């Protein structure tokens, strides 16, 4: 079941109090490039203010935990479908510590918590994005292809699995961003030819981003109605392409999160719909 439209979008975020690079589980992370804690805090707060004050989104906060530095990337916590919270099961043990913390929060927040069988890895909204009434899931680097079948039973919708082809874009939300039911940003080389065909068939208006923009995580955008929040440094061409389609881009500086292979979208989890 896709999210239904409602007035104010609700998001889940987690302050980067304990955020750090303490392991390397994707090509972006390097223990030699530590996070500047204070700068990270300021960047996260600027994003929080943009979302809550200018764009009037409601944000719920997840309490940070000292043992799980990546908890701040709430997009990977799970997938919300109505009142059901489909909890993630992370591929790397480094992040599996987040699972009970998120599960506890979801139960207290009143969700019915659903878990896939433990043999399936699934990394929540990081690898699962709605386009109209179809859920697209990325697999290979983090989530498993076989997880899409039990997932389709939980969400009672068509779930199409797409294989990711470039390990720099290890989650679906790093190379693909649906803007509406007909429009999406994508970086084509991050998909194999089968995935490219599926997307081309499903979405009439695909905006291909350049490699430079893709590496600035242009596709890791938060979409709230016609507002698109993405990292600073993306090209003028992309900005024009968005504006031509009546989307307003909002650049935010998220360089400290980029170091961990994350950007705007990774920092929020949709708890309700956006138009």
């Amino acid at each position, binding site marked *: 079941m896709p999210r239904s439209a409602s007035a104010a979008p609700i998001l889940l975020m987690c302050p980067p109090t304990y955020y750090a690079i303490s392991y390397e589980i994707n090509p972006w992370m390097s223990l030699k490039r530590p996070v500047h804690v204070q700068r990270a805090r300021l960047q996260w707060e600027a994003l929080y203010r943009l979302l809550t004050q200018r764009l009037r989104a409601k944000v719920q906060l997840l309490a940070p935990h000292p043992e799980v530095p990546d908890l701040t990337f709430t997009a990977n916590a799970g997938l919300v479908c109505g009142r059901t919270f489909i909890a993630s099961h992370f591929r790397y043990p480094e992040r599996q510590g987040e699972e009970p913390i998120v599960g506890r929060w979801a139960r207290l927040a009143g969700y019915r918590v659903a878990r896939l069988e433990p043999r399936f890895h699934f990394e929540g909204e990081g690898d699962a994005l709605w386009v109209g009434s179809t859920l697209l899931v990325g697999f290979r680097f983090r989530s498993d292809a076989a997880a899409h079948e039990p997932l389709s039973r939980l969400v009672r919708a068509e779930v199409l699995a797409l*294989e990711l082809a470039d390990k720099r874009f290890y989650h679906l939300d790093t190379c693909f961003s649906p803007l509406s039911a007909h429009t999406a940003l994508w970086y084509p080389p991050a998909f194999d030819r089968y*995935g490219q065909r599926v997307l081309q068939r499903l979405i009439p208006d695909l905006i291909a981003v350049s490699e430079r923009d893709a590496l600035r995580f242009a596709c890791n955008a938060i979409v709230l109605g016609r507002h698109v929040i993405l990292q600073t440094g993306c090209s003028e061409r992309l900005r024009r392409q968005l504006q031509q389609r009546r989307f307003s881009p909002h650049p935010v500086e998220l360089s400290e999160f980029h170091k961990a292979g994350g950007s705007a979208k990774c920092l929020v989890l949709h708890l309700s719909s956006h138009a």
Partner: protein
Amino acid sequence: MASEIVQVQGHIVDSLILPKVLDEIMDHRGTFEILAIEIGKRKTDTSRARLRILAPSPRILAQILKRIARLGALPLHLRDISLVRAPKEGVFPPDFYSTTNLPTEIRFRGRWRPVQRIEMDCGIVVEPTTGRAVCTPIARVRKGDWVVCGSEGVKVSPLERAREAQVFQFMGSAVSSEKPKAQLIKRLAREMRAIKRAGQKILFVLGPAVIHTGSAPYVERLIKAGYVDVLFAGNGLATHDIESALFGTSLGVRLDRGEAVKDGHDHHMRAINTIRYYGSIREAVRRRILKSGIMHACVTHQVPYVLTGSIRDDGPLPDVLPHVVEAQEAMRRHIPGVGMALMVASTLHSIATGNLLPATVKTVCVDINPAVVTKLSDRGTFQGIGIVSDTESFLRELIRALRV
């Protein structure tokens, strides 16, 4: 050729997962057979496909399985077999797995292992320390043996379809008296030469009609030419063979003239009595009492034979095994290495032998009565061909085709 059955399910059509799985198999030089496919009718319905993957080697199969597991196509047999101890001597646990005669593997401690000495209607006994799996007839199971129960973790491989037209494909299993025999026998002869070249054994199962029809000299020539590696028969074949060697008759009928001789009806009893006097066929040959015939040729050419008794036997000859379970065991000992079984003019022995043979053994059943040939395939020995023919003319043609 290695094979595995996998299943893939979900929205595998619209997401192109299924075509991708098939492409991956072919890219790795594998082939596939779609065993079942269910396509969802509405957009939200999922689809499911079950495939048999065939690969030229186990290594390539493992590569293919690894690739397609990533796409969510997983082997159906992910679990190990379950083992239960045999409750008594000669008794399987209630839920035991009953075997077929097809090549069978079991999954034990995560690894596929072939079942040795496969035979239909038996159980599988596993030695837990080594993982060795042996097909075991019910009478041979010992109390406390670990027996495979249920069908989880058991994989049965169908016989491969031969690429070129071979004699066993040529006729299929259908039995008909209206098929061209000369061609069939020529191809059979070619196949027999190939079996010998491959170092495999040819097993003959013969009924007494071989003697009655005067075909024994053909069999002798086959034995001398090395085409008979093992012989299974009953008291009747051996008795009449010896009768003909000693008296020139079979059931009192002169084989050279086809006429009944006076008091000929007791010749076979005198033949049995003679052999009983010397203690065994071998001894009678050694003392130069028995100087010709099929049994003589077997002894002089070191061809092992198993003679099994039945309730209507006269005598029997001292070489006949009267206990059927012992006889089965004696027959089983000769099965390993057999590549072809030729069954001529014998109903009960053909079916008994068919039951003991793995499906990989090429089986030819020759009888004048089509019912015998049909019966054999109805009882599960479906791997063979049936030739409805008179024994004498079949063997004569075979000798000619083999040029012996």
